[in-house]
Structures are given as structure tokens and as C-alpha cells.
């Protein structure tokens, strides 16, 4: 009988998962409050005192920030539903909570430039205003966090397992082109 269960490996234990290689470590980030805000983004940023939105490879600071993912859309991290309700707001924006829809991993170290070169086609010295990009063939949102040398990658939750396997295969992370046994 056809056994398709062997086609996919179990998800890693996100609480314990960790990858490292020379100059780089990668671990999941859990528990972030993530919202998509569409509409008048400039007005929204001012209203919630979020400062400037973060573009591709831009640097987000603190626990509360907004990342630009389209001309009229932000991925807002750290603003709770108690402060900002889901749905349409007459001030000119719509809010959707996507905390459970996206998984986040964080890479640290001087190796992140090599990781970006491997996963994206972006020019790291001219990345542009939009943090949504293709990474390892997936749609992802990618920016720096807290300090230069830290990179956050958000991907669809269903693709996170694939992302982790892809990372495990990277020579940069000690991979030999095959995922590590789990």
C-alpha cells in the first residue's frame, strides 16, 4: 500500500529547534503577536506611534514595530488585539490577526549575509522599501531585528517545516545537502 507518510518528516520541536554553523545560529521565535494592516499605512503608523516602517533588510527595534510588505500593507508585530481590534477601522485601515499563520525564525551572526545570498536574489546593499520577498523559493518577510547581524524571517506556517529542512541542508549550517536526522 502506498505510504505517503514517509514523504514528509515531522515538524521540528519549535521550542528546542536550533541550528548553527561557523558565524551563524538560527532558532525559532515563538509567541509574537502578528497583524496585517491594509489601507492608509502612513496614517496608521502615526496613529499607533510606530515610527517608520521597516523595509527589506531594514532594522526593526524593540518588541513593537511595523514591517512594510506591500504598497498598502504592513505586517505589524507586538500590537495586541486589545489595543487594536480586528476588522475595518473608519480611520482608513483593515486589521487581520495572523499570529498563528506565520512562523518566525531568527538568524544571528556574520553568516547572515551568506544566508541571504543563498536564499534570495536581493541586492543586500540596495534592498528597497518592501520586506516581502522570495526566500528559498517561498514568499517570506525578511528584515533585521534589534541589532545589525540579526535577521528575522516570517513564512507561512505550513512552509516552516520545509524552511527548516532547507536550512538544515545548507553547507553554511554544517549541512551536506541532506536534512539532518530527527
Amino acid at each position, binding site marked *: 500500500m502506498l505510504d505517503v507518510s514517509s514523504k514528509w518528516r515531522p515538524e521540528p520541536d519549535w521550542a528546542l529547534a536550533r541550528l548553527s554553523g561557523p558565524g551563524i545560529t538560527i532558532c525559532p521565535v515563538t509567541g509574537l503577536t502578528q497583524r496585517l494592516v491594509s489601507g492608509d499605512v502612513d496614517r496608521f503608523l502615526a496613529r499607533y506611534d510606530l515610527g517608520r516602517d521597516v523595509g*527589506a533588510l531594514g532594522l526593526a527595534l524593540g518588541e513593537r514595530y511595523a514591517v512594510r*510588505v*506591500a*504598497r498598502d*500593507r504592513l505586517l505589524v508585530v507586538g500590537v495586541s488585539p486589545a489595543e487594536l481590534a480586528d476588522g475595518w477601522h473608519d480611520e482608513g485601515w483593515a486589521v487581520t490577526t495572523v499570529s498563528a499563520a506565520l512562523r518566525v525564525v531568527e538568524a544571528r551572526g556574520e553568516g547572515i549575509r551568506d544566508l541571504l545570498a543563498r536564499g534570495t*536574489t*536581493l*541586492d543586500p546593499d*540596495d534592498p*528597497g*522599501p*518592501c520586506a*516581502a*520577498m*522570495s526566500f528559498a523559493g517561498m*514568499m517570506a518577510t525578511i528584515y533585521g531585528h534589534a541589532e545589525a547581524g540579526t535577521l528575522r524571517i516570517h513564512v507561512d506556517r505550513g512552509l516552516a517545516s520545509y524552511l527548516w529542512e532547507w536550512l538544515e541542508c545548507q553547507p553554511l549550517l554544517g549541512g551536506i545537502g541532506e536534512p539532518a536526522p530527527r
Partner: protein
Amino acid sequence: MQLFPCPFCGPRSESEFHFGGDAGNHRPEGFRAVTDGEWSNYLHARNNPRGAANEIWMHMTCGEVFRMERDTVHHRVARSFAPGEGDGHDGMAH
């Protein structure tokens, strides 16, 4: 790899884009008044030029839909237009 200019994001790999057909190929209005010929032309007839092309593309990662002028022979991109840009000649039905 070829770079396409998303009017919002800037230059990105062609693999991030999806082709959206000839610019200006708007769906015929009028429901029953639309003839079989007009509908068939809308669905099937393509400009397919050799040289200057005027097309609609979508940047998949940000969702921007835009008009792009490029050349099908040497693949140089003349320019792309943000929605509403270019004196209303952004190639899209509004």
C-alpha cells in the same frame, strides 16, 4: 536571471513575477451585447509582438499589479508604471 522593476519594491528577480497578459485587454462590457467574436478576441487573441511589448505583470511577493514596457527581442525593460501612473494609461480597467 533577469531583473524586473516592481513600481513599489524596485528591481527584483523575474521569478518573483507573474505574467498578466497584454495591457489594455479589458474584459468587454455589456453582457449579452458582447458578440462571440469580441469575447473570443478577449480570451484568445494575443499581441505577441516581436520587439516593443506592453504588458501587465504582477509582483507576487507584494501583490502589486502594474504595466511594464519591455522588449521581447533583447529583453530590455523600458519602464514600469505604478497603478494610476502614466496619465491614466496604466493599462488597467478602472
